[in-house]
């Protein structure tokens, strides 16, 4: 995806930089592809390679094994990895601020609210923390958990509902499967995790190894995140740019769907001021309190702490909390240069 670019002499030396995606390229990665396509990484001196993983749990493994400079993963996944002894890996920025995982139902399922889940079949993809979401949602809605049957359908969440074997599904993303179903006039009911009792969290995060973040590594990471932030700003101005960039990476993507998904996702690509009325929102916010100052990629430590506490209460984490924080904002654009580690 080379555009007309500044001539070679103007470009800084290119350093290779491999980013392991969480999944095949899709709308969630539009900002990265937009940055790549616009030559932002090149200008930052990075020869960025965006690599699809063997499976969604692989990015952290391959990162830990030193096969990538950065991995895109999920908050619960990172916390699990750290719980299994990988304390060296750390989240260095949020790609998506909010949960994307949602409870989706088709009209035939007769589920409009979490309360309607009583006596229904719910399809999940067999990921333990998502099963825990369901538990929490049911408890929150005062639904007897024994009346709800959870069926693990692997990658067939939508198909399970279409074939009427499941009344609802938990695990697909509202910005992708949800948007797809809406565009197909299937009239889905979409309930977001943070709206039905699950503590909010950053769905997609950038994860790095601390040991890679020596002076040069940190500099590279800063340049990457800064260029990526710029890519997302491009995306905000012109979502189509992201679509074109994505389609260059994979012609099999449906342009209409990607554009709709990007537009739907835009709000959660950027940090937003917490709504004081929101039950799931953190009660306090760490400085800078001025929301305008929140850099792109910002991770709210209180949000993380809440979520980690929830995981612990669900016995998803077993080890005592670690000394080292699972996140740091110090490599975000405009951050960390003055104060070394804001999150401590």
């Amino acid at each position: 995806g080379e555009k007309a670019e500044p001539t070679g002499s103007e470009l800084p030396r290119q350093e290779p930089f491999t980013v392991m995606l969480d999944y095949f390229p899709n709308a969630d990665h539009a900002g990265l592809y937009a940055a790549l396509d616009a030559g932002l990484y090149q200008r930052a001196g990075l020869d960025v390679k965006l690599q699809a993983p063997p499976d969604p749990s692989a990015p952290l493994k391959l990162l830990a094994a030193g096969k990538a400079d950065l991995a895109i993963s999920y908050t619960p996944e990172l916390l699990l990895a750290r719980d299994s002894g990988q304390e060296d890996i750390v989240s260095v920025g949020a790609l998506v601020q909010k949960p994307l995982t949602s409870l989706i139902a088709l009209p035939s399922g007769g589920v409009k609210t979490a309360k309607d889940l009583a006596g229904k079949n719910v399809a999940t993809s067999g990921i333990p923390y998502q099963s825990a979401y369901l538990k929490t949602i049911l408890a929150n809605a005062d639904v007897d958990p024994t009346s709800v049957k959870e069926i693990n359908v692997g990658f067939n969440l939508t198909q399970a509902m279409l074939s009427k074997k499941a009344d609802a599904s938990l695990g697909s993303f509202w910005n992708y499967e949800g948007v797809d179903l809406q565009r197909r006039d299937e009239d889905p009911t979409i309930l977001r995790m943070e709206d039905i009792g699950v503590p909010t969290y950053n769905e997609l995060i950038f994860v790095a190894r601390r040991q890679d973040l020596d002076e040069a590594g940190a500099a590279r990471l800063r340049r990457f995140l800064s260029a990526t932030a710029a890519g997302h700003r491009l995306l905000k101005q012109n979502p189509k740019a992201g679509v074109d960039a994505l389609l260059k990476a994979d012609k099999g993507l449906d342009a209409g769907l990607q554009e709709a998904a990007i537009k739907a996702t835009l709000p959660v690509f950027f940090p937003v001021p917490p709504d004081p009325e929101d039950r799931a929102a953190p009660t306090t916010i760490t400085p800078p309190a001025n929301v305008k100052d929140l850099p792109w990629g910002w991770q709210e430590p209180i949000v993380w702490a809440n979520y980690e506490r929830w995981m612990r209460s669900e016995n998803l984490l077993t080890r005592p909390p670690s000394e080292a924080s699972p996140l740091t904002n110090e490599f975000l654009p405009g951050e960390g240069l003055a104060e070394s580690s804001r999150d401590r």
Partner: protein
Amino acid sequence: MIPPLIVLAVLIGGWELICQAGWVDPLLLPAPSAVATSLWEDRAILGPDLAVTTQEVVFGLLAALVLGIVLAVAMHLVPMLDRALRPLVVGSQAVPIPVLAPLIVFALGFGLAPKIVVVALICFFPVVVNVADGLRDVDPDARRVLNALGTSRWQRLRFLEAPSALPAGFTGLRIAAAVAVIGAVLAETAGSTAGLGHLIITANAQLASARVFAATALLVFEAVALYVLFSALERRVVSWSPRTVS
């Protein structure tokens, strides 16, 4: 018994060394000692899942065996059927599970049945091909003897072709036995609430690599056990063949 154990010991020893030396991240490749620990500590989880997978494997394999033999015999008896069905049989092996799974789920739901179907679908193919080939590899002189006796098609099958096909059939059966296990895992990844495949997915999602490998070790063990079982059966049944005599 000894050589495989030596190889196993060397392999596991080397693997342990690599892990101890820290060349590979334990998330990616846990040390055998960690896997062994998980095998022991997680036995309460692994045991029932193994039982579930074994059940799927056994029923799927039986279904594949029956289906494969019936189909091979039918195709052998009616050459037209062979020409008509063989492309379908071959093509059936090229349909990815993710494509098939929604349909199977649609038709059969989430119980044991869809797993048996998937295992059988994967296993019946080597059985069909080997049995069909075996049915044709008949000593021409024996064929002449039986033909001259005016035997019925059925009698030729029973007295001549079926026994001739036994060695090849067992080859196919052993292949089927070895891949049945992975068939069950594939079936479970397409939707299940128990079984080693299910366990692997959940453990993988939790980055519990040691448990993933513990489950894999059980799968490997089960495949080898089934293969050995069918080899032993073969030695008893096909005792006349040079392959078992020599």
